[in-house]
């Protein structure tokens, strides 16, 4: 695929891309060389671009028979040594949940981009929503952790997809880019750097691939065919992959470690962005496309000398609890606009002692700044 010619010759790396196209470019830049997927609105442009870009870069692309097969072949390719990805939307994301649990338990790196649409069920396929936030965290059975990132621009669809691969390789965990229809279909100028920082999974000959001395460590991960004679299983296993289906200690040790390796690194993983927080009394907490409405509102009200600010969550899981807790100590109220019925608002309540005011909207449309402005003016008075 020939990228569109840049508008100005002085900036060769600038391209006018949709969020979905930018995410595909991020994957390629991060070293993704395997993609398996199944068509679903509003994520299909990612798959279409990956089909072209992987052909150009010597990678493997395959359109599978369904989303179950898509995520499972991604996990197979990951064990064959690939950086691998799939993209989908709500219904497909639901189908992938069992395999996401498998990826977490077998510590298989993979990236899943969920371009969220209005759910539940088939809902409104072409309309926006962000109702999959809790599913990203809790969708599969049992106790496990994932990492979930939330882009608000086409540039971040690129950058956070790169980061998703790096985190996935570093922590051996499924990483989700929780995009939404609005950011996926948005078109903006995106700077594609000639080089990005890339992290590759650690290998160690003869090392235990499923256990570490530390109770929160990340073991090395060899690939199939390297002579390590790997035993990979979704049943409870010991450090070398032997099934331990009736050993209480082995089970507790493994489940605790796959949780601790993420939760104890929350501060290294979770990213937020502050706007006008120094003197704010009321703060909007927002993520994804909705944070754009949040920032616009806050800037508008600042012109009226209102002490309002914005905390933008770039990472949703592990939840940036320190940033939210600290905010709760200093402000009177937080307002949380989101395209669901309060999924993140409920999480914020766990850590904030101040008033938490959700603005839940589930009409398949973005939350307009006016709606946030109206709420901010009302709660301030």
């Amino acid at each position, binding site marked *: 695929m020939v990228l569109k010619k840049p508008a100005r010759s002085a900036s060769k790396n600038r391209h006018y891309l949709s969020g979905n196209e930018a995410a595909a470019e991020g994957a390629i830049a991060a070293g993704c*060389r*395997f993609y*398996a997927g199944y068509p679903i609105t509003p994520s299909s442009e990612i798959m279409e671009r990956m089909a072209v870009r992987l052909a150009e870069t010597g990678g*493997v692309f*395959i359109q*599978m*028979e*369904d989303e*179950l*097969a*898509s995520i*499972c*072949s*991604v*996990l*197979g*390719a*990951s*064990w*064959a*040594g*690939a950086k*691998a990805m799939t993209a989908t939307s709500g219904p497909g994301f639901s189908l992938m949940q*069992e*395999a996401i649990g*498998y990826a977490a338990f077998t510590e298989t790196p993979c990236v899943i981009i969920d371009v969220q649409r209005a759910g539940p069920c088939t809902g409104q396929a072409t309309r926006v929503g962000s109702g999959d936030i809790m599913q990203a965290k809790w969708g599969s059975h049992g106790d496990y952790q994932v990492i979930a990132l939330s882009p608000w621009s086409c540039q971040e669809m690129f950058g956070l997809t790169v980061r998703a691969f790096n985190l996935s390789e570093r922590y051996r965990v499924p990483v989700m880019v929780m995009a939404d229809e609005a950011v996926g279909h948005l078109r903006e100028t995106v700077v594609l750097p000639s080089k990005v920082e890339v992290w590759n999974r650690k290998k160690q000959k003869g090392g235990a691939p499923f256990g570490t001395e530390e109770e929160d460590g990340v073991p090395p991960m060899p*690939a*199939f*065919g390297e*002579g*390590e*004679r*790997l*035993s*990979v*299983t*979704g*049943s409870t296993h010991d450090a070398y*992959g*032997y*099934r331990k289906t009736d050993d209480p200690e082995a089970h507790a040790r493994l489940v605790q470690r796959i949780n601790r390796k993420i939760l104890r690194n929350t501060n290294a993983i979770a990213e937020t962005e502050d706007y006008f927080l120094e003197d704010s009394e009321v703060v909007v907490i927002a993520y994804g496309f909705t944070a754009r409405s949040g920032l616009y509102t806050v800037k508008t009200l600042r012109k009226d000398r209102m002490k309002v600010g914005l905390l933008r969550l770039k990472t949703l899981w592990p939840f940036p609890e320190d940033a939210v807790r600290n905010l709760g100590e200093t402000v009177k109220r937080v307002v949380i606009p989101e395209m669901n019925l309060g999924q993140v608002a409920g999480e914020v309540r766990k850590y904030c002692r101040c008033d938490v005011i959700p603005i839940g909207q589930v009409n398949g449309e973005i939350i307009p700044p006016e709606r946030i402005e109206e709420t901010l003016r009302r709660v301030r008075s």
Partner: protein
Amino acid sequence: MTRAMEKYLRPGVKGTPFCPGCGHGILMGLILRAIDDLKMDMKKMVFVSGIGCAAWIPSPHFDGDTLHTLHGRALAFATGVKLFNPDLCVMVVSGDGDLSSIGGNHLIHAARRNIDLKVICANNMIYGMTGGQVASTTPKGARTATTGEGNPHRPFNLSRLVEAAGASYVARYSVTQPVALINAIKKAIRHQGFSFIEALSPCPTQYGRRNRLDRADEMIRDLMGRCILEEEAEGLSEAELAEKIITGELHPCRT
């Protein structure tokens, strides 16, 4: 399984998990004999399995790379492994319920793509691990934990299904035909394309005891009597054929 094959077993793995009289132990030995005859490099072999008794044939026993996956999804995982690293010899060993019921969609699509996967389906015609419930391969009329009055539905003819979907080598043999089965597995390993071996395997524990074949030797004898070659089937009436299982290279390959 003979001791000569123990060199292919993962160190530290003791015994097999199979019930007395189960055919899966025989099949395990036959797969290893085929690998031994062809002098395959175990470092370049990946064994992928799903969930169920048959999935434990390779995992963790075989001393290559083993990938024990989710119920029904072995072929999808195997597709990812093979496509990303075509130098690996990828063999899928799993059961009839895993491959053809919960994983049925992946089975027909993997066959359609004709990707070079060697699939060995251990068909015991029942869900063994979960306690003997009816499967998509259980013969009509057979009693199971969920069909006490006899299975009211027809079973899949698995080999014909996979052949119709596009597999380029298909063979069906029982573990009571060990030499033919070893040769078929060897052909599958050498064949560059989707190969499917339906290996009939007796389950006296869950199937036999509900169908007047309690003892392992009774089940083996029953299978031996019912498995006939294609040429033997010619001229038999429909009623006679109903009791028989046609074995052989149902879709031969050129290699």
